[in-house]
């Protein structure tokens, strides 16, 4: 049984943090840096009482309205987040209840970030191919804003909150094809929130600046940008090459590439290294920032709305980041 992306919708929280807001707070930060180098003008931030579960529900409700989808047809919930509502139970169960979905369905949440959308598609494809589910509600939702230190101007500039809902089904506009996945746990501490879980349950209150100038708080999101950057440069070009070989397609048969929208200069560098022509490389993050596992579905939705995706077009999606984790897949437009 083939698996298809049937429809995508997304939800952006109302509150917006603009570059002007950031520069007021950090006068040494410039619009040149944030706008032209990072490629971000603004990012949406979840309100104080708005959790990743709340946002995922809003994205799902938008999806149901879009296509007048019968909620009762959903037979599996897949939820990707690194900022769940509770340690337990899984937020996916709460989502089943709040959306009023059937009870004889599966629901689980998995913890991945920027590679999350690719992994979710791989799980969904497996469930459909095995005949375990037919209409999967795949949700991504993240509130990294909650993890970021108030003085961390780099991460405050990069990350935005958002949620997406994708219906993966036995029919749709894009057939989900082959995958290539990768993991390197040696890079575990390059993007981390150290405390609050089993290893370090209490705040450590440790705060310094690392050798690269990154703010490093044990109790907040820490990202060693240059290590993460070097990892993507070393890994992603080969990932794309391997996937294309696996699909037995020629390079020129790939019509679009939608990468995880991390930041503009990383995407520019990756595009050049992967030798992808500009017109095939979709970048769309100026008004939302890096929304972690939501960047790819938001970009894919916008690509579909803005371009004539023709029958037979091949699109490669690639996600990479925290873990370290990465993956890519190809889809064919029906």
């Amino acid at each position: 049984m083939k698996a298809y992306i049937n429809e995508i919708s997304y939800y952006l929280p109302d509150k917006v943090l603009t570059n002007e807001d950031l520069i007021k707070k950090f006068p040494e930060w410039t619009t040149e840096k944030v706008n032209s180098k990072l490629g971000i003008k603004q990012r949406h931030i979840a309100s104080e009482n708005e959790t990743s579960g709340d946002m995922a529900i809003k994205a799902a409700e938008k999806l149901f309205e879009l296509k007048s989808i019968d909620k009762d047809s959903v037979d599996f919930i897949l939820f990707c987040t690194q900022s769940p509502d509770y340690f337990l139970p899984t937020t996916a169960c709460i989502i089943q209840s709040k959306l009023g979905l059937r009870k004889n369905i599966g629901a689980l949440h998995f913890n991945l970030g920027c590679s999350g959308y690719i992994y979710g598609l791989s799980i969904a494809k497996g469930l459909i191919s095995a005949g375990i589910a037919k209409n999967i509600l795949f949700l991504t939702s993240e509130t990294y804003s909650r993890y970021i230190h108030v003085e961390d101007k780099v991460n405050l500039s990069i990350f935005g909150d958002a949620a997406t809902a994708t219906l993966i089904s036995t029919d749709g506009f894009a057939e989900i094809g082959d995958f290539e996945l990768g993991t390197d746990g040696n890079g575990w501490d390059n993007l981390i929130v150290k405390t609050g879980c089993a290893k370090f349950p209490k705040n450590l209150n440790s705060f310094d600046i690392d050798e690269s100038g990154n703010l490093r708080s044990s109790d907040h999101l820490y990202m060693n940008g240059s290590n993460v950057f070097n990892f993507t440069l070393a890994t992603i070009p080969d990932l794309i090459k391997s996937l294309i070989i696996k699909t037995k397609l020629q390079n020129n048969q790939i019509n679009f590439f939608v990468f995880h929208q991390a930041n503009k200069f990383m995407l520019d560098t990756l595009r050049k290294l992967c030798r992808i022509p500009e017109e095939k490389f979709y970048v769309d993050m100026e008004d939302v920032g890096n929304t972690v596992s939501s960047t790819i579905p938001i970009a894919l939705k916008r690509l579909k709305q803005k371009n004539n995706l023709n029958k037979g077009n091949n699109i490669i999606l690639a996600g990479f980041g925290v873990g370290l984790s990465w993956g890519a897949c190809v889809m064919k437009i029906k």
Partner: protein
Amino acid sequence: MELKEFTVNFMDQFEDSDREKIESKTVFKDLDSWDSLTTMLVIAMIKTEYNFDITADEIRSCNTVEELFNFINK
């Protein structure tokens, strides 16, 4: 690869206000706009223009633009 061209490529990764201050003998870590983001922009430039993999630590082990140029050239 020429030092002059490398210095121009290097300069382009900095804020306008610092660009005019940069020459081959400049101790780049002393510049106002040297930070974690600029380090990554320099890594990106060196990779795409010179096809050379360099880490943040290696960049920091060099003091001047000329030393960085020599590091890549060796």
